[in-house]
């Protein structure tokens, strides 16, 4: 699904990622952990195609190089990023935003646009599955949402858009235990042989609920250690310092 080879990323002449290799196969869930400033969020942004980075190395998604593909086209190909800080867009109804989003992805796949009624049904199904209050859909997109609501909204979008590769950028930061469970539920219920996940986190806490196939430790722009889920537990005890 995703193949990253010797990825080097700089911004304003400062190198952030310094030769990163990572392969994610269909059905796998990878967790990336690492201290502040290790390049975790940069990796998430580079994968989703944010502007402003200088990139070298290989970045392939389903056998196709992503480097020249703009953000919207990547999204249409099934790459989803749950933002660390979801943006507020005043005056834009959350429900309409989601519908517009789903339809542009469907259109790109050559599918028919979803009608209002089917969409409503889909939304109802997903909100009740996750235990999210439907009311957030009638509000302006992320405007006045609490931190938890914003993150839940990201996961709801992930469920509705049904991407192939979901990247969660510190979705767990600052969440209480109930919200954390909702996030985990959203991920776990989506896992199957075809879907892949890249979960970026600071803490092992989320990984109590989501069991990763692999845990990578990112430090100073490189993956310095890879292991199975026990690695996360170990890190929580010893901290990142020992790894350097």
């Amino acid at each position: 699904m995703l193949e990253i080879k010797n990825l080097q990323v700089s911004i304003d002449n400062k190198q952030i990622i310094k030769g990163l290799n990572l392969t994610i196969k269909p059905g796998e869930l990878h967790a990336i952990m690492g201290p502040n400033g290790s390049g975790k969020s940069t990796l998430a942004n580079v994968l989703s195609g944010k502007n402003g980075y200088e990139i070298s190395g290989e970045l392939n998604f389903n056998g196709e190089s992503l480097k020249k593909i703009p953000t919207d086209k990547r999204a249409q190909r099934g790459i989803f990023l749950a933002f660390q800080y979801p943006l507020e867009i005043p005056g834009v109804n959350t429900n309409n935003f989601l519908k517009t989003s789903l339809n542009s992805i469907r259109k790109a796949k050559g599918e028919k646009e979803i009608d209002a009624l089917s969409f409503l049904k889909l939304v109802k199904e997903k909100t009740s599955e996750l235990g999210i209050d439907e009311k957030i859909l009638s509000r302006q997109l992320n405007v006045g949402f609490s931190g938890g609501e914003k993150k839940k909204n990201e996961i709801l979008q992930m469920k509705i858009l049904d991407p192939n590769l979901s990247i969660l950028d510190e979705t767990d930061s600052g969440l209480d235990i109930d919200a954390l469970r909702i996030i985990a539920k959203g991920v776990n219920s989506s896992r199957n042989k075809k879907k892949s996940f890249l979960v970026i986190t600071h803490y092992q806490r989320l990984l109590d609920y989501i069991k990763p196939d692999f845990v990578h430790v990112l430090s100073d722009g490189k993956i310095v250690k890879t292991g199975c889920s026990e690695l996360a537990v170990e890190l929580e005890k010893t901290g990142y310092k020992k790894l350097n």
Partner: protein
Amino acid sequence: MKYQELEKTKEYKYGFTTDIESIKAPKGLNKDIIRFISKIKKEPEWMLDWRLKAYARLKNIKEPNWQKPKYPKINYQDLYYYSAPKSVKNKPKNIDEVDPKLLETYAKLGIPLKEQEKLSGIAVDAIFDSVSVATTFKKKLTEKGIIFCPISEAIQKHSDLVKKYLGSVIPIADHYFATLNSAVFTDGSFVYVPEGVRCPMELSTYFRINASETGQFERTLIIADKGSYVSYLEGCTAPMRDENQLHAANVELIAFDDAEIKYSTVQNWYPGDKNGKGGIYNFVTKRGACRGKNSKISWTQVETGSAITWKYPSCILQGDNSVGEFYSIAITNNHQKADTGTKMIHLGKNTKSKIISKGISAGHADNTYRGLVDISKNASNARNYTQCDSLLMGNRCGAHTVPYIKNKNLSAIVEHEATTSKINEDQLYYCNQRGLDQEEAVSLIVNGFCKEVLQQLPMEFAVEAQKLVDISLEGSVG
């Protein structure tokens, strides 16, 4: 119809001209031209006197020049003040008599006058250059006692009403362009809604400038008698021409006790080309008087066209408890300029006003909000809320806010909020990440920004206005 011209008009789809024979008065501004206009309109003596009085006044006043957008000097002697399609010289009595070419033009503009009668619930008065070509739904309105007709017809048939109210809100001597309009206005709409009547449909006027080197000076007068209600909408387009054309209209609204007038404008005059060549100078005076107690006047404008937009639809809140509202979206792209806002003059007690202004600038455009909230000594408990938001796209455009507040009454409460923001790269990225392309993303964010104002438009026009917002900004984000 010149179809090859249509090809060029992808950016401005109303930019076509209609090949139609027209009757023009000779170029120039003088007493004879005014007499000519008055005569061809078969006006009574008092109307001609009124026009000549305005003309006499005009010679003693100067064009204002305090506005932000500057323009080259207009040679008023080099304009046509009257142009009419030949075929309506003998006024058509009903739509079947209207020149098919004119009907075709309006159909192309999205206003099928003929079907209009049967299908939609909107009565339309269509103004082509200097004359009104058709008014639909007349019968249905007449049954309710509502008068909706070209002002030229009202001057003949409802002379006493026109005589009483014309110029009562915008006096002849108001300012240069208003005075010019008073001297040479050619057509426009007249509406009278009798006491206690709620107008059962939207009334709408569609203005079209067709002939070249023509100024359009229309005059609209709307009177809502006690306890009545009317919602009125005007739309405007013009062909693409290299020269600048002047449009100086006067609109007067009068609301008596418990009456309400809702006036909406979707202005899409030709804005000029990408380099700022051509386009309409839209110098318009719009003013409403809330004469009676509990009366209400609400202006909603979506300004997307014109090379220069210069107008301040205003409310004089004379009656106690009267309410004035101003909702505005002004979009300027390429080299367009706008200096627009409102004046809320609080005279009566417990008068309320609300101003919501959304300015959007892209390209090299310049957008100014200018507003006045004036609370007089007697306007106890007056209340005003103003919110002015500006959105900038790119780094070559400008946004300015010039609010004036004059308050002579201590019990008044005046609030002013303003924001200026650049269209946020992160918001765009967020939308892109959800599969929306750049244009969809811009459209979504801008429409969100304008939502409070778009909501004020009558349903039928809200969708059209939203599309217009999209088109106006197409290609403005790289």
